[in-house]
């Protein structure tokens, strides 16, 4: 039988990742080298530093993925690589490696949209997951609502006009001195606290599917600044709960409305912010009340990984799609 193994390579931001996936559904190996420590002292991802680290990690990560899968390059059906969106310098490392490997072993190559990868993480995590569905992808780099009538077909209903949801979490966490990345720390501090004690705005709730978080960020910063000027002490837990709720409220409201409008019975979550416990709890509870099947992938498939790229690439390779050797990074690639 023809091989169904696809090598997926992902270097769009600060994770160097490679995975081997069988038939677009079964993970044979999933290797992720995170660079979080490198960027921590800068309070965010520094593109040049990320690109340099990718060069050091790319071959060891690919080699380990193949070894863990017990496969050689010649056992592959093809190679899939993230083409965009993302940091151009980072993307180019994965793309250059993928093109050279594919050429040298005569393998088919496809470029994959990173967001498509995040959506496909759900097909990996839930082999029984069917379409049509609506997917809410939230991370440090993106916030998007996508309607998926069938695998490989995507209709973007809305994205963010400014900051991604995860970016807003990181910025506020940095101001609070919680370190980088800050989403998990805010989630932890907010647990069990009253989210309504501090009033913060909900931008664009109730209208359309676009998101905007910069107004919320400014309002939160102004609140902290005013308290500092007036010598008032801010309860960090209460503040974290209020800030988190302002983001979660908007995400949940739009996601549920999107599922209703598209008349789907399935709503899936993906991206790093899918790990947020308040977002999961609210979506599961309110989604169930509307009769929706709400799911998300396990944490290692929520954050950036090569398996989701391999899964998305498998469907494209199967459909006969091939990328040329001139394949280039598309930092602002759209679905």
């Amino acid at each position, binding site marked *: 039988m023809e091989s169904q193994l696809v090598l997926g390579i992902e270097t769009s931001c600060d994770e160097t990742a490679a995975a081997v996936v069988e038939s677009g559904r079964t993970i044979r190996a999933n290797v992720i080298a995170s660079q979080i420590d490198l960027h921590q002292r800068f309070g965010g991802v520094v593109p040049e530093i990320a690109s340099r680290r990718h060069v050091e990690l790319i*071959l060891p990560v690919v080699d380990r993925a193949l070894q863990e899968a017990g496969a050689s390059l010649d056992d592959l059906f093809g190679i899939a690589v993230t083409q965009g969106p993302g940091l151009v310098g980072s993307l180019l490392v994965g793309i250059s490696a993928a093109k050279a490997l594919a050429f040298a072993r005569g393998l088919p190559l496809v470029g994959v949209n990173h967001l498509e990868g995040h959506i496909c993480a759900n097909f990996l995590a839930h082999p029984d997951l069917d379409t049509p569905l609506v997917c809410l992808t939230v991370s440090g780099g993106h916030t998007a609502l996508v309607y998926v009538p069938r695998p490989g077909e995507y209709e973007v209903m809305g994205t963010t006009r400014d900051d991604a949801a995860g970016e807003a979490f990181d910025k506020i966490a940095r101001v609070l001195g919680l370190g980088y990345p800050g989403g998990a720390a805010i989630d932890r501090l907010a647990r069990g606290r009253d989210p309504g004690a501090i009033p913060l705005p909900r931008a664009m709730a109730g209208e359309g599917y676009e998101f905007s978080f910069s107004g919320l960020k400014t309002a939160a910063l102004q609140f902290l600044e005013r308290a500092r000027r007036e010598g008032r002490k801010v309860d960090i837990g209460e503040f974290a709960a209020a800030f988190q709720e302002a983001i979660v409220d908007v995400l949940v409201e739009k996601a549920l409305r999107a599922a209703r409008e598209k008349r789907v019975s399935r709503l899936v979550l993906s991206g790093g912010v899918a790990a947020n416990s308040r977002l999961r709890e609210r979506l599961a509870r309110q989604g169930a009340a509307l009769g929706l099947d709400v799911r998300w992938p396990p944490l290692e498939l929520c954050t950036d990984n090569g398996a989701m790229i391999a899964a998305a690439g498998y469907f494209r390779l199967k459909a006969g799609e091939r990328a040329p050797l001139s394949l280039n990074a598309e930092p602002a690639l759209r679905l």
Partner: protein
Amino acid sequence: MRVLGLDSSTSTGGVALLDGDRLVAEYTLDVRRTTHSERLMPAVKRVMDDAGLDPQSGVDGIAVATGPGSFTGLRIAVVTAKSLSYAWRTPLAGISTLEAMAFQAAGPFPLVCPLIDARYGNVYAAAYEPAGEELRPRLAPGLRPIDEVLDWLEQATAGPGTEGPVMFVGDGVPVHWDALASRLGDRARRPPAGFLQLRAAAVAALGARRLAAGRQDDPARLVPSYLRKSEAERKWEAGNRSRSSSSP
């Protein structure tokens, strides 16, 4: 021994195939309307195809210019070379871009000085003294203001017994030619058109020599030699220095 040479250090990019002493194919392109990412692998394929080589059988060795140069450009050729070496299981040699430039321009001159334009009056520069088959380093590769390089050259070539012409090479030469000529007069020399920018054949030739001497690089570990930290690191370190020096 068939050695494939790759370079995308500056706006020039190239691929060459050397078979022993014979240059089988060479492709050099310096256009700014496409990127190295779009043109490097198609150039590799073209050179292999035209030479009648099976892409899956590969070559006997790979040489790549590791910099200095444009950070993004360096990564494209280095990652491409690493990955070809890994997939073909072919020995790999990383070659200094400055050394390859000096190798290309070396002749009957006491000094060869490769210059890569780094903007704002700066160059990546080195100086080598050709000695038989070898290039003896005289000025270590580094990022410097062009005036500093000229000061050094004036000193190094003005004394009795050391005076003589300096051969300049690289894309920094046309940018700074007026300064070079005014400081060194007719001791400043430059190669004819077509030999000013790095040619991949020089990278392949130096690589072949290095591989024949049994020296190779681990494809998993080879990285560009940027010769410069990222801006974020420089700012961070500067900030830390000023903080620690202002504290009592």
